[in-house]
């Protein structure tokens, strides 16, 4: 099928109406599998297909919406047994029809959410879609629809692009707040799916044409792709299950969207051939109003789109260079540490986060995937994937949810040939460094020439200028004093001449100078006035972030000083004095009152005169013991225990940092593997146990949630652990616990403790555990017993 030709020939493309509604009208019960009808009642499906073609559909959907491995399992079928037959039925309908039409392989949501909301991994989802796409190769095009999770839509689209040459139409389902159920916004959908090469994008299901008007309006304003709209027949009545918009009104309401620029129209739940006929009637003689727009430069996560129309702060702290504590975290696969670096920067004002996890001796690709997933699971801030290895970039671009920036490509042939195809394929933005085989040119002209070369090459790959961010490179001022102004001049010219965005790592300027903040801040301000869009900097330094905010105020970007006042208006010079001054406070007092910051400060002070281990064994642990004992007696409650543990954790962080700086290894009392078992995703209990165990000086290898028994065995063996902790919340997941214990018993000699809401000591014994841990406190007692401390 020549999709472009069809787009050019026809003013509007008419899609079909609902399949499920027609099937239910023919007797299918709610919630029953509709794909089985391809086998049991093929003539019914063929009549529905034919009915839509005759009603005027140019593209109609095969009855394959839920024909994925996961959903078909309940009826004991595979996609290969269902999909080719559904396509055959569609082709029969085409052959019988009086007019030309095309059939689409219809791909709906898998029915299970992907990580981090659910348990399905990106690659599993990709594989499920790939199977459908291969089975449906005889369709004329592919439709991916009713998606609510952007990463699932991405998995489907990528599977389609990599396993088929058919055109791909992609629609997602938005609610009245113009977001999907998982929070995806329209801008993010347009940028991400458009970037990945969808042939048309749009909106289907959830609401009627009246309610979806604003969403369609928004979508038409942020994409140059043909826009699809396939709404429900209004809203269903929960009592009668009837939809409230009739065919004629449906057609009229869709017609009202023509001025917005829609190109492809149809109906979803509740619609029938009558609705399609009404659409055809209403659209006859109308002209498509889509116009080509200049799209803004934008990066996004699924939930947040950041338009680069003014200076945006890229946080640079997720990077191990020169940071011993960060390097230690990478070696220990400590994702909590990385996530906290993310949260800290976001709270300080970062709008995009650079993620660099390259360190000799670690598997950078695996670490990058883990870090991107972990950071994206806790925040909506778009990321900049920072690596010099194309393979790492590729792996991260695949699983990234949204449209990231790639950091970086440069003017070297090798770099251009390796990085630009990835940027084009995944539809990312890219940082282009002004250096090549000959190093960094000294002259302004030399740098601009490299920037031009990068742009030319990017043009060849179809990467728009708005997605290119040129870095004219900051050199150290103490070494090359004349270079600062050259960098800024090159930046100005690139911005004006090439139509690109500009990016600059600013902190490097002051290397080797005293009072670096003064130089950094001034250089940043100078660069902003020359047109710097993306400063890569440490947002935790207040004077740097405030310089950007002040610039946005002075440049009339921050209208009415809203952002500025919101950030600095309420600031009072002195914080309210605590009941006890920090100097007079003991660590024990701070812990008992839940004063994290004070406790950390006192610990830092104590470290000047006290051995770290003495602080741990002499103060932190006795206080934890005291609180634990009170908890056991029922005098204190779980939140209070966790509160104390949280404070202790902040003290341990200070001690870790201290040990790391001084090259000393921490003393571990033993290593414990813990996880929430296969099938279970409620991991809060396990996480509480982890914090407490770490407080007592144990090294905890946290395998996370929904963990395969084999992985637990692997981790237990590799680290030769003496104790494994398993958690399960539900009766339905206790089976996963039992299975894990069996596999551990067969493969590794260790003690096993189990815990979880529905667990009882009797049941723990029955499934072969050594210990039943009633709560987090008891887990620590068990550890003490096992490790003999």
């Amino acid at each position: 099928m020549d999709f472009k030709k069809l787009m050019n020939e026809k003013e509007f493309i008419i899609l079909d109406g609902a399949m499920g509604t027609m099937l239910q009208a023919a007797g299918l019960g709610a919630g029953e599998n509709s794909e089985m009808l391809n086998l049991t009642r093929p003539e019914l499906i063929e009549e529905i297909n034919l009915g839509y073609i005759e009603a005027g559909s140019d593209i109609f959907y095969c009855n394959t919406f839920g024909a994925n491995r996961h959903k078909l399992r309940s009826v004991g079928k595979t996609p290969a047994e269902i999909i080719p037959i559904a396509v055959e039925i569609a082709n029969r309908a085409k052959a019988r029809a009086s007019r030309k039409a095309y059939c689409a392989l219809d791909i709906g949501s898998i029915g299970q959410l992907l990580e981090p909301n659910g348990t399905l991994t990106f690659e599993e989802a990709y594989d499920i879609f790939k199977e459908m796409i291969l089975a449906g190769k005889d369709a004329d095009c592919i439709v991916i629809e009713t998606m609510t999770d952007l990463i699932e839509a991405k998995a489907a689209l990528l599977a389609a692009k990599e396993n088929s040459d058919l055109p791909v139409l992609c629609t997602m389902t938005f609610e009245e707040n113009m977001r999907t159920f998982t929070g995806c916004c329209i801008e993010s959908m347009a940028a991400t799916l458009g970037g990945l090469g969808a042939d048309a994008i749009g909106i289907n299901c959830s609401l009627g044409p009246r309610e979806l008007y604003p969403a369609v309006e928004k979508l038409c304003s942020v994409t140059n792709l043909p826009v699809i709209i396939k709404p429900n027949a209004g809203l269903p009545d929960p009592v009668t299950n009837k939809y409230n918009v009739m065919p004629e009104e449906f057609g009229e309401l869709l017609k009202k969207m023509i001025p917005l620029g829609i190109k492809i129209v149809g109906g979803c739940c509740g619609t029938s051939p009558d609705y399609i006929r009404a659409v055809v009637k209403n659209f006859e003689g109308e002209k498509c109003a889509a116009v080509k727009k200049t799209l803004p430069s934008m990066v996004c996560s699924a939930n947040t789109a950041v338009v680069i129309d003014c200076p945006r702060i890229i946080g640079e702290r997720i990077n191990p260079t020169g940071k011993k504590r960060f390097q230690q975290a990478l070696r220990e696969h400590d994702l909590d540490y990385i996530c906290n670096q993310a949260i800290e920067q976001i709270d300080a004002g970062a709008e995009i986060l650079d993620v660099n996890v390259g360190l000799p001796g670690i598997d950078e690709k695996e670490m990058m995937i883990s870090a991107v997933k972990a950071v994206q699971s806790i925040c909506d801030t778009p990321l900049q994937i920072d690596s010099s290895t194309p393979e790492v970039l590729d792996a991260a671009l695949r699983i990234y949810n949204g449209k990231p920036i790639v950091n970086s490509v440069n003017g070297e042939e090798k770099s251009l040939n390796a990085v630009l195809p990835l940027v084009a394929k995944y539809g990312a933005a890219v940082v282009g460094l002004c250096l090549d085989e000959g190093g960094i040119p000294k002259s302004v002209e030399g740098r601009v020439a490299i920037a031009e070369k990068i742009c030319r090459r990017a043009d060849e790959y179809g990467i728009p200028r708005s997605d290119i961010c040129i870095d004219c490179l900051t050199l150290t001022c103490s070494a090359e004093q004349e270079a600062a102004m050259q960098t800024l001049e090159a930046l100005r010219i690139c911005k004006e001449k090439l139509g690109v965005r500009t990016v600059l790592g600013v902190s490097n300027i002051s290397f080797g100078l005293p009072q670096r903040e003064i130089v950094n801040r001034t250089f940043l301000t100078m660069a902003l006035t020359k047109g710097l869009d993306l400063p890569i900097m440490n947002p935790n330094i207040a004077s740097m972030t405030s310089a950007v905010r002040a610039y946005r105020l002075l440049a009339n970007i921050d209208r009415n000083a809203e952002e500025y006042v919101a950030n600095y208006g309420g600031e009072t010079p002195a914080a309210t004095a605590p009941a006890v001054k920090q100097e007079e406070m003991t660590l024990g007092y701070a812990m008992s009152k839940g004063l994290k910051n004070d406790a950390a400060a006192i610990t830092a002070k104590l470290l000047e005169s006290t051995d770290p281990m003495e602080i741990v064994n002499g103060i932190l642990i006795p206080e934890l013991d005291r609180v634990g004992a009170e908890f056991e007696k029922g005098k204190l409650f779980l939140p209070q225990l966790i509160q104390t543990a949280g404070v202790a954790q902040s003290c341990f962080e200070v001690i870790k940092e201290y040990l790391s700086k001084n090259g000393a290894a921490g003393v571990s009392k033993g290593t414990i593997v813990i996880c929430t078992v296969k099938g279970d995703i409620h991991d809060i209990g396990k996480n509480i146990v982890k914090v407490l165990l770490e407080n007592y000086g144990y090294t905890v290898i946290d395998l996370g949630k929904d963990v395969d028994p084999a992985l637990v065995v692997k981790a237990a063996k590799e680290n030769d652990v003496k104790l494994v902790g398993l958690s399960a919340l539900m009766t339905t997941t206790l089976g996963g616990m039992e299975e894990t214990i069996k596999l551990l018993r067969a493969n590794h000699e260790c003690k096993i403790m189990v815990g979880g809401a529905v667990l009882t000591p009797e049941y723990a014994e029955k499934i072969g555990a050594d210990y039943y841990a009633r709560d987090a406190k008891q887990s620590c007692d068990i550890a003490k017993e096992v490790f003999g401390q």
Partner: protein
Amino acid sequence: MEISIDINEVKRFMGYGGMTSVDERQERLIAELKALMEKTIKPAAVWRVFDITPTDEGPALAGTALVLKGADIRRHLAGCDRCVLLCATASAKADELIRRKQREDMEQGFIADCIGSAAAEAVCNALERELAEKLKGKYMTWRFSPGYGDLPLAIQPQLLAVLDAPKRAGVTCLDSLLMVPSKSVTAVIGLSDKPVEKGRQGCAVCNMADSCRFRKEGVHCGL
């Protein structure tokens, strides 16, 4: 959907059981996180009314293959000719906030988790108010969920499919029958033209009855 999260319910989920006064700092933390949760979540719900016919296994829902099995649900729907099937969720955004807070600070993570649970209840309460409005003049029983008493949790996937909940509320279910997003509720409410006993949950049908901390201490969670 306007929801209001009940602070006392949050404290109950935290294990305080309404008998302990929470310290001022934690009180403030609960209030802050509650406000943040309310701002963050995008509650969603779907419900549908079905005629029910008694069968040997239990009440069957007309127009579906769903049979609500067990003696407890039969008792729950006694005297009702119809029922409301509902699914309500505090949304994936609640899970995300809980995840984030756990990484940041376990105490806040724990409190956020309890607020998330209370938020799901609040969505149900809001939905029940909507039901009362839409079904004026009908008498309703309380919300009976899969897993209560002998109503098997195993009907969860089918119940969600009947409601088209993945599409209409964004709620799905794992093979292990856990719902995703996790702060979600499904339930059955009986409908009748005649007065029926609304009842309340009580310990008899609670699947936590054996391991309940409140019961051990001789008190009641309040549900």
